[in-house]
């Protein structure tokens, strides 16, 4: 009995609360920066593509809507030859972002993904890749990885000793 009275009272109190409904799209709702909306590919602080086409986002994707192909550039970086997300399948779960070892793939607060034609929901790399770093301003995978790229030889990555002198006989 007491619970019924309490519930009724709480409902009654809500009559005097401020209305939560906003006049979308005239009025835009506040979206938290970590909201899981439209997916982007970001660049590292040097302005290079962060994606190394490791395929972890694709394999983590529960609806299998990410497809890409690895290739590599002259300077030794791996990058995707194509990177395709079929947003008509995407459920914006954010598993790809969680799986990404380089912070390349990120979800943004943009949720307005409506199209009249389904093929328009298929985003290629040119639609996905932005010019900024997204949510993670500092991280550059290539500064940490042991693999050599132009301008970063063996021993130049974070926490690395200079290359070993194999010919040395010193103990």
């Amino acid at each position, binding site marked *: 009995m007491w619970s019924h009275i309490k519930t009724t009272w709480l409902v009654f109190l809500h009559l005097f609360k401020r209305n939560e409904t906003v006049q979308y799209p005239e009025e835009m709702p506040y979206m938290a920066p970590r909201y899981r909306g439209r997916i982007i590919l970001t660049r590292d602080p040097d302005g290079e593509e962060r994606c*190394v*086409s*490791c*395929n*972890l986002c*694709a*394999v983590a*994707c529960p*609806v*299998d*809507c*990410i*497809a*890409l*192909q*690895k*290739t*590599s550039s002259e300077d030794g970086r*791996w990058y995707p*030859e194509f990177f*395709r*997300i*079929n947003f*008509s*399948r995407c459920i914006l779960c954010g598993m790809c972002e969680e799986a990404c*070892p*380089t912070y390349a793939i990120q979800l943004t607060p943009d949720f307005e993904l409506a199209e009249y034609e*389904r*093929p328009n*929901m*298929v985003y*290629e790399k040119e639609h996905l890749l932005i010019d900024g770093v997204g949510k993670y301003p500092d991280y550059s*995978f290539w500064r*940490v*990885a*042991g*693999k*050599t790229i132009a301008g970063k030889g*063996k*021993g130049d*990555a974070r*926490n*690395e*000793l*200079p*290359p*070993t*002198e*194999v*010919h*040395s*006989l010193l*103990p």
Partner: protein
Amino acid sequence: MPKIIIDNKEYEVADGDNLLQACLSRGIDLPYFCWHPAMGSVGACRQCAVVQYQDENDERGRIVMGCMTPVSEGLRISVDANNAVNFRASVIEWLMLNHPHDCPVCEEGGECHLQDMTVMTGHTSRRYTGKKRTFENQYLGPFINHEMNRCITCYRCVRYYKDYAGGTDLQALGSRNRMYFGRTEPGVLESEFSGNLVEVCPTGVFTNKPFSESYTRKWDLQSAPSVCMGCAVGCNTSPGERYGNLKRIQNRYNEDINSYFLCDRGRFGSGYVNSEKRIRNAGLRCEDGSFEIIDKTDALNRFAAIVKDNKLIGIGSPRASVESNYALRALVGEANYCAGFSDAEAPLVDLAIDLSQGHGKRAPTLKRVEAADAVLLLGEDVSNTAPRLALSLRQTSRNVSKEMAGPASIPLWQDAGVRGHAQSALTPVYSASVLPTRLEDICTDSICTTPERIAYLGNCITQLIEGKSVELDEADMAFVNGAAQALKSASNPLVVSGTSLLNEAVLHAAAQITEALKALAQEPDLLLCFAEVNSVGAGLITGALSMHSALKKLTDGSVDTAIVLENDLYRRAESEKVAAALSAASQVVGLDVVENATLEQATLVLPAASFAETEGCCINYEGRAQQFYQVYEPQGDIMAAWAWVAGISKESTETDVREKLISDCAIELPCLSRLTHLNRMAGQSGRTAAKIPRQTHRFSGRTAMNANVSVHEPRTSEDVNSPFSFSMEGDSAAQPGDLAPYVWAPGWNSNQSVTQYQEHAGGALRGAADAVFVSHAASTTTLEKTGPIFGKASGKVREGGAGLCLVPVYCVFGSDELSAHTSEMQARAGRARISLNPQDAKALHVKTGDGLYCSTGEITPGQSYEVLVSASMQQGFVGLVQGAAYLPAGAWVSFVRDENWARQPEVIARG
């Protein structure tokens, strides 16, 4: 079978195993790195630690290495004991100290044994904050990438490369934590088995370079069981496809043939499937030489019209499947069918099939080869014509060390012990060849001479075995006598020869030696090598026409149409004869995979599927019929050659046609009657009726990979008559091991998971079906004493025309037709070479690296060869590497120095 107690549970294990092998065989996960089923244990990585207890009262026990401890009755051990678990966790943490942060950009990622073992051991976060040791990498050639930072010093690479494959240019260099596994200086890895480093290395130090170019993770590859098309050994492979491109070839375990290893031709020689020379559409050759693409229906109609209206001959091919060859023979009739061998090769193939099948005993499997206790190689340069056999012969040469290990109580898996005890003792291997082979280092004695002389020496060996005497000069006598004695005193002697020298007498000599050994109540084996993947199959599907009679029929106009099946006739007969025949024909229908000279003259070109895009069967040197399954659906209008020939129409599907072809073939050719046993259905073969998925359970991108074409995902195509499905759905766990498209087991993502498919670690595959062999009537060959010894020629003296006598020699990279279209193969093959005696070279004013061309124009017009001066080449003879053109063996040819030849700068070191 001793019983041991593992974690208080009793297990029956195989006698003579070590604890690691025993645990893996009984499905207990015990991490390891340095142990390999084919290479045994060395105890280098300290990862497979277990606790061994003194008796049932012992509470503490002591830590031992699983791979170094033999099983014994009543032995009590623990895998899960705390101190063993902690020990293993510490070891992997040490191994990981310097491991780079590379997994996302490492080709091994996702199928990495190090990743698996790290997860298995529970090492999840890095405590070490110090700096990581680094190494510079080396250039190792077009096949292999080197990334030395990833090394965990398990020594598997050098143990494989040096100890197992006999390579000399990969070493363990440096000391303490500076251990470096590489060459003394950067350069191409010389061994033709270097590709196995990719699979042997438990992490990503050695990776597949061509695969890396357009890399795909293991989980994204679509695979099916396949067979290598590189030579007649028929190694089992697992090709992987993604986005319509064949990405790579991995080894597929087959206990009897290739076990864990492939040669580099097999692993890296399939790039032609994706090449620009690939024919993807049917087309017509117009008068002006242009190529007009026509659609599939039009092509089929035109083909049907040609078949209906014209007098036909059909030319098959030893590199096409049994189905394709038989379909063509059925279409044109036996009287108008040519099997597609050159006139020199055809009788030799018949003879070799007869000798190796018809004497009541089949040619030995490679597993049996590895058990032989004396070997004679007669004329065949197996390193170049059947490379995987050469790797097996290396293991054969170690049999004496295994024999010595027994009395010294050294278990055979105790690799270092067995090798150390035997020192340099080797099983007798005798080799007679045209040029020095790459097996010289394991040969007790070897000799280089002409094909006729090889046959002569072979006959001398027979004489000695039969107890007669022969007269020879000292060096030859030592060889012949040594070989005869070794074969006589062996219990399982093996004689290896083959068709490659195109010399009948050599084959006869090899067979006679075997017969003589049989008379001594031994169990001799005769292994005859064939040139191409389906040489035996094509040899059994007989046609009435020889190559020259087929060409003559076209030239003289008695027939007006030729159907050429997957065969470049310019490799099979003199070019002007082929050109004349093809231009005389009113219609030439060419079916092939990649463009070639014959197709340039074809009026109707039909795109044939490669081995990865269709099903078919091939018959290897033993007479073993093996089926390769379709890996992926071809692009464009590509269709199996047998489907084109049998005229697929709307009424009959491809699968029906193939089934009918096989059953008709089995009825018409009794020797192939057992081929019907090859067809296995999922329901019949496995424990469940579910199909085996070609895609892995983690296959990604299904709803995006075709979305650029259409957002509506296509229905997966059904594969009715094979045990496989073109999807990730099905049951891959409960299926027979020999039908596994790829190996993958829970917790075991790398290729090391093959152990999980075996009945006993390193043994037979679980649930594998019996092999299917062709049946052959009793031999019709009478082994007449026809060899040169019984006639007048001793083979030592030059007899014949002016100039130099051509002897065919082979190169593992480049001699095979299709794999030579792969760019990495071309890079490795270099230029076509000619081997000359120093005297002949002097007379022609050339030295090594210069160019020579044939002055007699009909042979290899326009082709110049790079000279290789070799004292082993007999004077008056030249060894010409078989490759792009037809070379009549035994012909007398004059050569002229090519003045326009650009010498390649001598390479000192390649960076």
